[in-house]
Every structure is written in structure tokens, then in C-alpha cells.
């Protein structure tokens, strides 16, 4: 078989042209007969008891098909009032501003809005709990919870989960340090900022069965969300994924599908719920507010001797399935360096804010802002070059890391080396310039331990000489393109002979969430295996047909040929006919399968990503201009370098947004003050410089063709790199994000 025709080739996404023509079908583009529009009635209070809801006027309005409240939610086994999944509609208590207390399905948006205005809700307003530090103190009010059928044994508290990580002799570690620094870092609530708001359409098309169309990263997770919250059996739900207008962790398994499903049942017609941008920024699972106290000791050569820390995450009103979030932070504070002794305390706290969700490399940006600022500052104190400082502490292959397992082979050193020698590091000036601006450069390092989730794929020969894969995975900005390249390489045909069916949960073999930078790693492995099995069967049958040994056979786009004898061949389509012709089929139709199991270790293929940022600060205004960004990343093997670069550049932009502008702001009553894209400021084209990428291909990962996770690692370092660059430019360090002009100007006074 010919090899290396597809892997490492930069090519446009398979769906790039239709997307450029505006033909992509996002969740709000799904058209169905008699489709009704759903709208949500938000709680006006951060914390309140819902005494009564009068929906009678709204229900009687012409054009209103259904109104639901918490009393319409069926009782389900396993109801957990602490679980984010169950918070889609308030029951007895509303626990954050914007939490839906009722929902309406109507013929059009304005009718739905009028119906919402006619609903009367009587609240008993409770004091909102908005201060995570105070919320844990004894005697403080607790976020109110609905009772469960079997009352939880835990006594009511705002403790949403805590844990401690301890290793080595902390006292001895600090005693041997030459310099000890203690700082507290604060990272605000930030939003994923995808441009497509959440949308979900539900239709009880067939008695007792519901079809759901939703923009989610995890089709089976989204299905299970409905099973869990409404008690509908999984086999009676078909969850259809749509094209996704950006997700970044925020569209994991959906949020409000139960509302669309309940409304559609009551309205007896399909119902679509699409969030407004205001709802997105108010009630759609942002990354949580995080506070990190960190004390680090280093010896005079820069080596870390001890780390002591306390991480507190304000998780809002609910737990999420992968929490505690603070524990993830603790882990990532110490996972990439050699830390002989540490003690880290993790604490998640309930408050009356919206529940949190994943945001691209969840909690890693927060952890990196703390530890990478700290190492930068320690490097400044010791006079050690920032990149050199990381090099001296970088965990080596085989060393046991924070997770307790030995570190596999990794590309961390190569990443550091490539940036240390880069012109952006060697040649950049710092300090105040003649033009009055303050220039600086900063560096930060990120690590993401990608691994495998379970995944399965089905492949078969398609009429016309194509190969069709059926998978449940969504095509998240290029996944199918890279999967096609993997399949084509394995089959020995070109990628444009590969077609994918994105199947709903009633038809697809299992696929995990398109997240955790695991899609290519997991589904790529399954697709590769299915392709290999299919090729073997094709070659086996061709050998029979041509009466030659299979080792003599070569496969191309249209036929299997005998090496050196171009006339001795069998067309792929002839093989298809040989397994499908009604009366003349010689073989049974062949279906190949590939499947990969999950892997528990987070560090099966560690991905290092480092960023250099260069900034200019205007001392008169405190405004920052990012002049240059360079990210070097160990990608194992870039299946499609253009798409890999795109991931790195997009992540860098998001991370810079978190550094300089982005924060969901709350007032004292628990209302979001900036729930629009003018005031929640995403980076624009005019804000950003060229984003340079260096792809390092360190072998050793066990992903397909050596590929490692790509999407999340480049998110981690840029925010801290920008912060370090600002420190370098102005000589002052600011430990609270975002580094807005006001805080920078104040630090410079």
C-alpha cells in the first residue's frame, strides 16, 4: 500500500465550501412543519422562593400553544437539586438571576414575548449569596434547594466539594528555599463566546418518541441529559446533532433541551428554543470565578522547593459532572514542573450565580495565570530568564508527577528550546521607549494531558467506489477532515473518496464528547481501525477474484491492482456489486468496525504549548496593544497542519481576550451587568496581531499516526504570557484578570 499521501497535508475542511456559501445548517436553521417558537421567563431574583405562578392569561392567548413551569417536570428517580442538569427550570426555588421559571411555545417570537409578559409570578425574595469567601462561614445562609424524594444525607451547606493534594515534606521544602513568594490571583467568570447561541428543537414525531436537534458536542451526553432530567427512556429519544457555530466546551450536552421537549409534548408540535445573547451571557454555563492563593519557594538556581496553595472556585448554584473545578486547578498548578513538596487545598463554593461549564482547557487558563505569573515573578527576583526558569523546573520523562504516575515522553523541552531561540524572544526590547510607550515581552507554558474517550466507527464500501463511515461524533471545525485523512491514509486511497454520515443517537455507534482535545485521538483511532479492517476485507476479496496472493495487491482510488500488471485489476465498484447484487452476490455485505476504549490516565499523550507575547502599554491610558504572539506546540503529528494552526491561533485569541477584556460582571443583586457583546468584549480583528505558530512533532504518542490533542493546549499559556509581558513593560504585576486599562493605569501611578 502506498503511504504518506494524506497525513501532514494541509487542505481545506471538507465542508469549507458549503460553509463559505452559508449552507451550513446550525441548530436554529432546522425547519420543520408548524414549528413553534419557545421563550423563557427568567427569574428576576438571584435567590427566591417561587410562591405561585399564574399562567392562565398567557395560556388563553391566541397563538400560544403551551406554557410550562416547574410543576410540569415529571418526577424522576435520582433528582438531584445540586446537579446543574436539573436546574433548567426553577421548581420551588429560583437560585440565580435568569433561571427560567416558566417557558412558552407560541406561533412567533412576539406572541411568545407577550405571553411571557402575561405570566404572574409571586416570589418570596431571599438574600442572595454572592460572596464565596463568606458563604462557607458557619451560620451563613445557604443556597436553597428543592427537596428530593430521598432526602440527601449531607447537611445543607455551600460547600460544593473540597479536596486536598499533599506530597512531600512541605516544611522542609520551604526551609530549603532561598526565595519564597506568596500571591493571590483572581480570575473572573468568563464566557466561551461562541457566536451561535444555544438552540434546540424537539418534536414528538411518533407516539412516545421524541426527536431532538441540538448544537451539542456530546450527542449521547445530550440524549442522556434528557433521560436523566425527564425520565424518557434512551431508546425513545433520537438526538440529532447539527452543525455547531462554535462551542469551546460550552455546548457539551446542552442546557435547556428538557424545556423544548416538555413544550413540544404539550404543544403537540415541534418547538424550537434558541437563546438570545443576553440569555447566553446570563444563564449559559460560563467558566467560574476563581481565586488562587499561591506560596512558592525556590532555591537560588530557580528550582522549585515547595508549593502551598488554596484554590476557591465560585461554582454558582450547581455542581457539574466533572467537578470539583478547584481540584482541577490544584492539579494543573503542579503538573508540569518538578515539585518536591506541595500542599494544595481545593474548595468549590455554591453561590447564587449561574452554574458553570467547561471552557476550552477547563480551569487550565486559571491555573496557568497563577503558576506562570508566579514563576515569572520568581525568575525576575532571581535574575533568571523566564524560559530558562521553566526549563530548570520542567518535569522529565519518567519522573512521577502530581498525578502520581510517571510522565511519558513529551515535547516540553523542544517547545521551550524553539521559543528561547526565536527572534520574538531574543530581539524584543522592553521598558519605556522614545515614543512614550512601554514595551514588554512575556512567556508562559501550558500543559494539557489529552487522552482517549470511548469511540466507535462503522465503515463500508459505498456504491461508486467510495468508503462511507457512520459515526456519532460531531464535525467540530475540521474533525471530519482530519478523520477522512486518517481513513484515507489507512485505506491507501485519497481523502476525497471518504464520506461521513453523521448519525443520530438512534443510529450511530457510540461517540464521546468532541472535547478534551480527544476527538482525533479517540475517534481517529476508531476510524483508523475500521479503515484497516475494511481494507483487509477488500484486499482479501480482490485476491480471490484475481487469484493472486494478497501481498501482490495495491489499492488506489478506484481499483485493487496487481503490482506490475496494470491490466490485472478489479474495480472497487465491482467488489461493491459482488456483495450487493440481489441474485449474483458472491459475498456477504461487509461492515467494518473500529472501536477504542477510554483511558483513565490524563497524561497518555501530554501536550505542551508555550507562548511568547509582545505588548505595548500606553502609560497615559493603560491601554494595551498586543504586538506579536508566537505559540510553539508539541502536536505529536499534525494530521492537517492548516487546521492545527487554526486551532492554535483561535485559542490564542480567546486566551488574550481573557487576559485583557473578558469578564462577566455582577451587581450586588446578582444580576449580570454586561450581558451583551458590546460590554462583554470579545477580541476583534483590530485588536489582535498576526499569530505565529511553530508545530513541533514529538513522536511517542499513541494517537493515530502519533497525533496528540490540539484544541485545548494552545488556550492555556497566552493569557499568562500577556500578563507577564505587561509586567515586563510596566515593572508592576497585577494579579487580577482582566488587565484592563483602568487597573494598568492605576498600577503605574
Amino acid at each position, binding site marked *: 500500500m502506498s503511504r504518506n499521501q494524506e497525513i501532514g497535508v494541509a487542505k481545506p475542511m471538507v465542508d469549507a465550501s458549503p460553509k*463559505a*456559501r452559508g449552507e451550513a445548517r446550525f441548530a436554529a436553521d432546522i425547519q420543520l412543519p408548524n414549528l413553534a417558537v419557545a421563550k423563557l421567563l427568567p427569574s428576576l431574583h438571584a435567590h427566591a422562593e417561587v410562591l405561585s405562578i399564574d399562567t392562565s392569561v398567557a395560556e388563553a392567548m391566541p397563538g400560544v400553544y403551551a406554557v410550562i413551569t416547574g410543576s410540569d417536570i415529571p418526577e424522576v428517580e435520582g433528582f438531584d437539586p445540586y446537579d446543574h442538569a436539573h436546574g433548567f427550570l426553577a421548581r420551588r426555588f429560583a437560585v440565580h438571576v435568569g433561571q427560567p421559571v416558566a417557558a412558552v411555545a407560541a406561533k412567533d417570537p412576539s406572541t411568545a414575548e407577550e405571553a411571557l409578559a402575561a405570566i404572574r409570578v409571586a416570589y418570596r425574595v431571599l438574600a442572595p449569596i454572592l460572596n464565596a469567601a463568606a458563604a462557607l462561614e458557619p451560620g451563613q445562609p445557604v443556597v436553597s434547594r428543592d427537596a428530593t424524594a430521598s432526602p440527601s444525607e449531607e447537611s445543607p451547606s455551600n460547600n460544593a466539594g473540597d479536596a486536598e493534594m499533599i506530597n512531600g515534606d512541605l516544611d522542609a521544602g520551604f526551609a530549603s528555599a532561598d526565595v519564597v513568594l506568596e500571591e493571590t490571583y483572581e480570575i473572573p467568570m468568563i464566557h466561551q463566546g461562541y457566536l451561535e447561541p444555544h438552540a434546540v428543537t424537539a418534536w414528538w414525531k411518533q407516539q412516545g418518541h421524541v426527536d431532538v436537534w441540538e448544537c451539542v458536542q456530546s450527542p449521547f451526553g445530550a440524549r442522556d441529559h434528557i433521560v436523566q432530567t425527564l425520565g424518557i427512556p434512551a431508546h425513545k429519544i433520537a438526538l440529532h446533532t447539527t452543525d455547531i*457555530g*462554535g462551542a469551546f466546551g460550552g455546548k457539551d450536552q446542552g442546557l435547556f433541551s428538557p424545556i423544548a421537549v416538555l413544550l413540544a409534548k404539550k404543544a403537540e408540535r415541534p418547538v424550537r428554543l434558541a437563546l438570545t*445573547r443576553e440569555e447566553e451571557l446570563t444563564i449559559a454555563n460560563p467558566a467560574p470565578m476563581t481565586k488562587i492563593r499561591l506560596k512558592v519557594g525556590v532555591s537560588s538556581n530557580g528550582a522549585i522547593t515547595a508549593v502551598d496553595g488554596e484554590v476557591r472556585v465560585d461554582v454558582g448554584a450547581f455542581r457539574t459532572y466533572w467537578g470539583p473545578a478547584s481540584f482541577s486547578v490544584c492539579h494543573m498548578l503542579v503538573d508540569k514542573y518538578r515539585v518536591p513538596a506541595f500542599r494544595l487545598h481545593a474548595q468549590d463554593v455554591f453561590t447564587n450565580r449561574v452554574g458553570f461549564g467547561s471552557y476550552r482547557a477547563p480551569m487550565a487558563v486559571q491555573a496557568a495565570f497563577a503558576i506562570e505569573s508566579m514563576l515569572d515573578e520568581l525568575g525576575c527576583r532571581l535574575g533568571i530568564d523566564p524560559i530558562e526558569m521553566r526549563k530548570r523546573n520542567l518535569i522529565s520523562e519518567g519522573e512521577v508527577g502530581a498525578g502520581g504516575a510517571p510522565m511519558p515522553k513529551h515535547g516540553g523541552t523542544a517547545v521551550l528550546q524553539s521559543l528561547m531561540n526565536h527572534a520574538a524572544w531574543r530581539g524584543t526590547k522592553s521598558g519605556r521607549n522614545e515614543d512614550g510607550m512601554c514595551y514588554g515581552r512575556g512567556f508562559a507554558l501550558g500543559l494539557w494531558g489529552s487522552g482517549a474517550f470511548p469511540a466507535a466507527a462503522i465503515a463500508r464500501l459505498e456504491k461508486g467506489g467510495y468508503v462511507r463511515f457512520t459515526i456519532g461524533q460531531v464535525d467540530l471545525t475540521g474533525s471530519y477532515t482530519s478523520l477522512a485523512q486518517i481513513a484515507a491514509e489507512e485505506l491507501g486511497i485519497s481523502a476525497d473518496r471518504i464520506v461521513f454520515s453523521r448519525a443520530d443517537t438512534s443510529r450511530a455507534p457510540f461517540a464521546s464528547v468532541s472535547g478534551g482535545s480527544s476527538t482525533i485521538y479517540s475517534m481517529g483511532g476508531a476510524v483508523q481501525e475500521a479503515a484497516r479492517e475494511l481494507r483487509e476485507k477488500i484486499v482479501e476479496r480482490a485476491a480471490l477474484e484475481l487469484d493472486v496472493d494478497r501481498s501482490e495487491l495495491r489499492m488506489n482510488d478506484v481499483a485493487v491492482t496487481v503490482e506490475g500488471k496494470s491490466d490485472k485489476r478489479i474495480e472497487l465498484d465491482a467488489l461493491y456489486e459482488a456483495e450487493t447484487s440481489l441474485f449474483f452476490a458472491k459475498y456477504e455485505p461487509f461492515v467494518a468496525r473500529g472501536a477504542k476504549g477510554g483511558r483513565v490516565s490524563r497524561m497518555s499523550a501530554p501536550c505542551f504549548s508555550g507562548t511568547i507575547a509582545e505588548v505595548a502599554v500606553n502609560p497615559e491610558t493603560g491601554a494595551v496593544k498586543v504586538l506579536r504572539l508566537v505559540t510553539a506546540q508539541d502536536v505529536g503529528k499534525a494530521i492537517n497542519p492548516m487546521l492545527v494552526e487554526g486551532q492554535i491561533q483561535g485559542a490564542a485569541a480567546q486566551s488574550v481576550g481573557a487576559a485583557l477584556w473578558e469578564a462577566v460582571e455582577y451587581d450586588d443583586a446578582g444580576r449580570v451587568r454586561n450581558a451583551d457583546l458590546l460590554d462583554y468584549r470579545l477580541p*476583534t*480583528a483590530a485588536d489582535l496581531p498576526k*499569530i505565529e505558530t511553530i508545530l513541533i512533532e514529538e513522536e511517542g504518542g499513541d494517537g493515530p499516526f502519533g497525533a496528540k490533542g490540539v484544541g485545548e493546549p494552545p488556550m492555556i499559556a497566552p493569557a499568562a504570557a500577556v500578563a507577564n509581558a505587561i509586567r515586563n513593560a510596566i515593572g508592576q504585576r497585577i494579579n487580577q484578570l482582566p488587565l484592563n486599562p483602568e487597573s494598568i493605569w492605576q498600577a503605574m501611578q
Partner: protein
Amino acid sequence: MNLLEMQLEVNGRQRSVQVEANRTLLEVLRDDLGLIGAKEGCGSGDCGACTVLVDDEAMCSCMLLAVEAEGRQITTIEGIAPAGELHPVQSAFVECGALQCGFCTPGMVLSTVALLRRSPQPTEDEIRDALAGNLCRCTGYDKIVRAVQVAAEEAVHV
């Protein structure tokens, strides 16, 4: 609300529609005319996903009432190239990897078309300023800027 009978010129065709006065051009394009290439990302003119050309000028169709668009030439993403084909700006976006999720792309392409019509050889700063009203969360804008440069370059050689 009363329905108003009106004519809209969309992609070179006269279309008769009956609309309430409070409906936006975006709603009418998507819901009445089936032109779903324009997207609603914010509904307040901040993101640019609903951008269309109105008399050659890039505008947010969510900020324009349908009745205000009467008598003006409206071009949507569906109208800049014959069906199934790509406008040179679209080709450049595809080849340069300037799109990922594709949600902002129709608006981004139309803003680029408007830019290149008024300034065929824009500098990088001009490009970035011209596209600052079109948010993209996926690409970091790098490859979008390259695509605009490629489109401008190729227009010279045509």
C-alpha cells in the same frame, strides 16, 4: 399588528412580502424568504453574523427593519455567486483556512466584499479595521486577514 405589503429587492430579484412593521430585515430574510445564510448571533448589531450588503454597504440586518430596506438592493451570501459556485472571496476563505465553524463566515465574506469594492488593495490595518464589526471566535482572525489579502491580490491579476 397590521401586515404591510412590500417589495424587497434581494439578490437581484423582486420579492413580495407581507410583514409586520416591527420585523427586522434579518427575520424576513430567514423566516419569509428562506435565506438562512445570515445568522443571528446577538440581535443587537455587535457581532456582525447577520451582515448583508445594502446598496453595496455591509450592514447588520438585525438592526434594520424590513420596511427600511424597501427600494434598496440587498445582497445576501446566497446572492454573491451563482448557485454551487464560489465568489473569489469565498474561494480565498476556503483555500486559506479562514473559516472554522462557519457561523460568522457569511457575514465576514460580505464585509470583505464590501471592503474590496471600496478599497481594492487594502493594507493589513485597513482589513482589520474593516472587519472589526464581524466577530469570529474560532480563527483568531489570522487566516481571515490572509484570505482577504489573497482575494485582493487575485483580483489584481484577473
